[in-house]
């Protein structure tokens, strides 16, 4: 299987380079990009088919880089994450082909796109620090270039700036984590090899340090609170299919990294790690969705919702660690299973949501939720798929989001029931509560998004939707949506995929505890299709009845107003007002009013609300300012006077002399 992945890497890179070279000949480009997609599809089929009989593979050849060999390997964890990666690659590359319409993307666009994909695949299969970091950086860098593809706008440049800084900061943390991991092997090439990492015995203190640095480093990619700062800036900036890829799968590389590092430390799990993960998870989940609710730009909103979903994944991982550390493999099996499945699920529905958002933006020229409305009539397919993804992301049944959440719930509830010690049940109960709150708020959030964008009528008269998107884009969305439904209804098909990764994550403890997982998914797979069937039957019956009896169309009841106008509709801001008001301390939401104070206004007053991400301004920018202030303490140095400069030289000699001879 590794062989095919390598071949695919070559296809990707070759296609990227060729499109860059023959940039002008659009026909050939049109031929090459679907190639990426089709190859991804084939590889996906092969991957999924071969999963049952999968054996870990590895490959090691010399590399001219110092201390590093080309060590690549494929284990079930990597393979599992490869699945959503391939699905999204296939869908987004097809989608992206028509996304740009009449203005083609820049020369480097497809090269960056394929490098991003290739980088992610490389991250998944590399087993050597240098190779891993190079792939990691290629992934970050190519996505950075994609983010700034429209860099003439100030906001986009800023987004790219903050994104690359976060990536760089993350790299610094990762260096630290990896160096700590390899410290036992000194300067040898072993110190870079993952196989060494997993074999060694670390002291608890070092394991703690490694975990903290790895969390910070990978967290800056995964984007949980407080490291999410770049997400809401970068996702809106990138073209939508790229956002889909970035939000759907690239941020999961951070999660993958955390899982990988955890697998090195799998004999060291402690309860406080679990508490840390769960705190991070709950905070990201709740704060992320709160911020999402307050947003009025669709892609920004989706970005915050990614923060929320990463939070859910972290909750699952935390639960998994908790289970292992307290000796309850069933909890950890459910926890890790939920987390892993949520990686897949979130990739699917978030990918679809971004593709849908891209379709909306492409057809309307704006992603401002409050200006849109009534798009479902013009874009029925996009709207329906968006609805499906909205239901899925809210964790509601029939679609896939529900499955992973119920796994985490199951783990937590198992934990709640365990006697002996209050810690485990309390933490588990907190997980349940936060998941419930997150779920409810997510439903509110996506009801708002769907309701305001696709329903009612356009809230601004200048918005003139152009009908639905072209065929390839629809195809890309349908492709993802199919997986959404299949995963949601027939989750037992997926559980076997989890077996291998779970063994890795729990250090083999999950081995005898897969049965409850199967049972739960089988029960769900028995009931959910049945419910869906009834719903479909009912709906058909209802429409038949309407067809027979006819319906009387009429204006929406205006509640007594004689001249209702589209601008009187509830907007996104007004929809979320109760929530943003209530939690304004958390989301730093501000209400703004433009207009006079008179009783009978001549000009319309404009109310708007706006939530301000205080993590960026409150933590990171403040830290940067402190750093700058510290540095500026030395700015007298370059005073421009040559005489003084000579004095520095004298001082250097004298100080060195004192240092070396007197002290």
């Amino acid at each position, binding site marked *: 299987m590794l062989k095919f992945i390598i071949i695919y890497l070559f296809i990707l890179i070759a296609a990227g380079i060729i499109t860059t070279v023959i940039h002008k000949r659009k026909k050939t480009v049109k031929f090459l990009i679907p190639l990426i997609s089709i190859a991804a599809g084939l590889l996906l089929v092969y991957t999924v088919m071969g999963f049952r009989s999968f054996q870990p593979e590895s490959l090691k050849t010399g590399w*001219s880089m110092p201390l590093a060999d080309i060590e690549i390997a494929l284990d079930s964890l990597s393979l599992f994450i490869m699945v959503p990666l391939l699905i999204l690659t296939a869908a987004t590359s097809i989608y992206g082909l028509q996304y740009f319409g009449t203005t083609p993307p820049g020369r480097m666009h497809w090269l960056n796109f394929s490098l991003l994909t290739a980088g992610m695949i490389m991250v998944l299969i590399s087993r050597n620090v240098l190779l891993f970091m190079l792939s990691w950086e290629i992934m970050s860098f190519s996505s950075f270039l994609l983010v700034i593809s429209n860099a003439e706008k100030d906001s986009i440049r800023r987004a790219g*700036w903050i994104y690359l800084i976060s990536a760089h900061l993350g790299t610094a943390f990762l260096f630290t984590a990896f160096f*700590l991991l390899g410290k036992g092997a000194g300067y040898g090439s072993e110190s870079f090899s993952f196989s060494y990492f997993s074999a060694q015995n670390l002291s608890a203190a070092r394991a703690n340090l490694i975990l903290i640095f790895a969390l910070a480093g990978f967290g800056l990619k995964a984007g949980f609170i407080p490291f999410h700062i770049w997400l809401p800036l970068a996702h809106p900036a990138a073209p939508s299919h790229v956002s889909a890829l970035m939000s759907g799968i690239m941020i999961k590389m951070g999660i993958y990294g955390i899982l990988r590092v955890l697998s090195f430390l799998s004999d060291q799990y402690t309860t406080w790690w679990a508490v840390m993960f769960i705190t991070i998870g709950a905070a990201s989940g709740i704060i992320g969705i709160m911020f999402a609710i307050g947003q009025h730009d669709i892609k920004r909103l989706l970005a915050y919702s990614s923060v929320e979903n990463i939070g859910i994944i972290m909750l699952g991982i935390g639960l998994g660690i908790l289970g292992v550390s307290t000796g309850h493999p069933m909890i950890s099996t459910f926890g890790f299973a939920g987390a892993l499945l949520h990686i897949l699920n979130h990739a699917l529905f978030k990918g679809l949501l971004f593709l849908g958002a891209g379709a909306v933006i492409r057809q309307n020229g704006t992603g401002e939720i409050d200006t849109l409305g009534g798009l479902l009539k013009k874009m029925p397919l996009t709207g329906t798929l968006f609805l499906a993804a909205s239901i899925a992301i809210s964790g509601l049944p029939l679609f896939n989001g529900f499955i992973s959440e119920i796994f985490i719930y199951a783990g937590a509830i198992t934990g709640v029931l365990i006697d002996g010690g209050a810690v485990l049940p309390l933490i588990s109960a907190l997980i349940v509560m936060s998941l419930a709150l997150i779920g409810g708020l997510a439903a509110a959030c996506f009801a708002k998004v769907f309701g305001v964008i696709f329903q009612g009528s356009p809230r601004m008269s200048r918005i003139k939707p152009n009908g639905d998107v072209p065929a390839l884009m629809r195809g890309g969305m349908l492709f993802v949506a199919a997986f959404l439904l299949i995963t949601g209804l027939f989750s037992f098909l997926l559980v076997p995929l989890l077996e291998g990764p779970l063994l890795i994550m729990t250090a083999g403890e999950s081995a005898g505890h897969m049965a409850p997982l199967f049972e739960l998914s089988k029960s769900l797979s028995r009931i959910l299709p049945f419910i869906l069937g009834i719903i479909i039957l009912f709906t058909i019956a209802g429409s038949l009845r309407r067809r027979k009896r006819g319906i009387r169309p009429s204006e929406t009841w205006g509640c007594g107003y004689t001249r209702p106008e589209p601008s009187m509709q509830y907007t996104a801001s007004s929809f979320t007002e109760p929530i943003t008001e209530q939690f304004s301390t958390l989301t730093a939401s501000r209400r703004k009013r433009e207009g006079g104070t008179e009783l009978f206004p001549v000009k319309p007053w404009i109310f708007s609300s706006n939530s301000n991400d205080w993590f960026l301004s409150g933590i990171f920018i403040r830290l940067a300012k402190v750093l700058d202030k510290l540095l500026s303490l*030395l700015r007298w140095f370059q005073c421009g006077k040559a005489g003084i400069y000579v004095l520095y030289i004298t001082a250097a000699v004298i100080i060195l002399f004192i240092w070396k001879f007197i002290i």
Partner: protein
Amino acid sequence: MILPELIISLNVMIFITGVIIPLGIEKPLNMLKLPLISSIAAMLLSAVYFFCLHNSDPVLFFGGNFIIDKLAFYHIMIVNIVFLAAGIYMQEYFAKSMETDEHTAFHYRRFSMLWQGFQLMLIIVILSNNIGLSWVAMEATTILSAFLIISESDSLSLEAMWKYLLICSVGIGLAFIGTILVAAGGINTFSELYIHAEELNPKLILFAFIFIAVGYGTKAGLSPMHSWLPDAHSQAPTPVSAVFSGVMLNAALFIIMRYLPIVERAGGGSGEAHSILLLTGFLSLLFAAVFIPIQTDLKRLLAYCSVEHVGIIAIGIGLGGLGTTAALLHCLNHSLSKMLAFFASGSVIHEYGTRDMRKITGLMKRMPMWGTAFMVSMLALMGVAPFSIFISEFLIVKTAFTGGQYLLFGLFMLGTLAIFISMLKFTLEIAFKQGKPGKLTGRVGIADKAIIIISVAVLLLFGLWLPPDFFGFLEQAAQIIEGGLI
């Protein structure tokens, strides 16, 4: 073995001829061809060195006053590459500026002569085995290059030149005292000194090394002696800046590298000399981080960036072991990317008519080729993967960490991050901010294109795949600094 003598004599002859010929030429453009021709010749000669000597032990010649070993060859290679590229670049550069400036033939004649003299002296610095000769040649580089700075004769460049001259002279003067102190024992070649190092007085040698490190460190741009550097690099004409940053700093560091094994061996491997380099290297990084965020002048920014990278090289050497190898690799990486960055900024400055970064916007649209070169070189300088600087910095921090230098590691990360933040901001603004509409009028010549493509390719290649023998070669060269193979 007569070969090395022959080659070095030929090399000297080439440059002397090169210096003399401009006296007989009238047309400025032809005068500027000479540096190019002599660089090509020097390049070919160094290729000959390589084929004849790359497997042999260090070769001493001219009574032991000169030496060719792997370390020297590596640096000669950097010198020749950068000078060759600068020679190519200057053709277009001066052709463009001739349209606007009213420089006389005298001016170009002087430039051509000084330039070649400068190159010759740098080569002698590197090939010299005699500590006195190293000093003489180094001082000569200062003298010869001073007037290269003020080719664009305005008040700021004069100021920069004055500071360069005064401060570097003082620095080199200190190095002279250090040199004399080292030679007090009666031995005056690096190779002999290394052999007899254990008989030397370790305290005296360390005392001398303080002078040497500060002295040559001044020329190399190590903090706190770097104060001349931003002025000179920013005010000089672009080819000169490129050569300053790409070669001269390395050459000064090279002499320190030569002294290092001697000092350490005399001191019984106590690491005193290394710690001096670590301190100054760290200070360089610090001062770069202090001043980069407030720059407005594009070339000044690059100059401070040189301070940073010299600091990184010094840190690498100061760490020893793998760090030395990484530092050597960093020398080449930095030279290439800085050279490219200066070339790009030179063209940009010419096109926009200003060096104020706030006024240079929309570069990618206006000058796609140079814009790409600028972007790539800046990103490489910031240490973004997959460019080769990432690899060398990675190895250096790895060495620092594994060696237990956690504080240094942390400060290194913090410093580079601070630099990264502001450099990235500048780069993005310059490259992408909405600029004046319309594409450029001037085109990029084929030679310049070649420079851009080759440098970018090498930076990228070395980031992903170091040629197998190359790293081994570097390790052997590093062995010389580590003490071993002189």
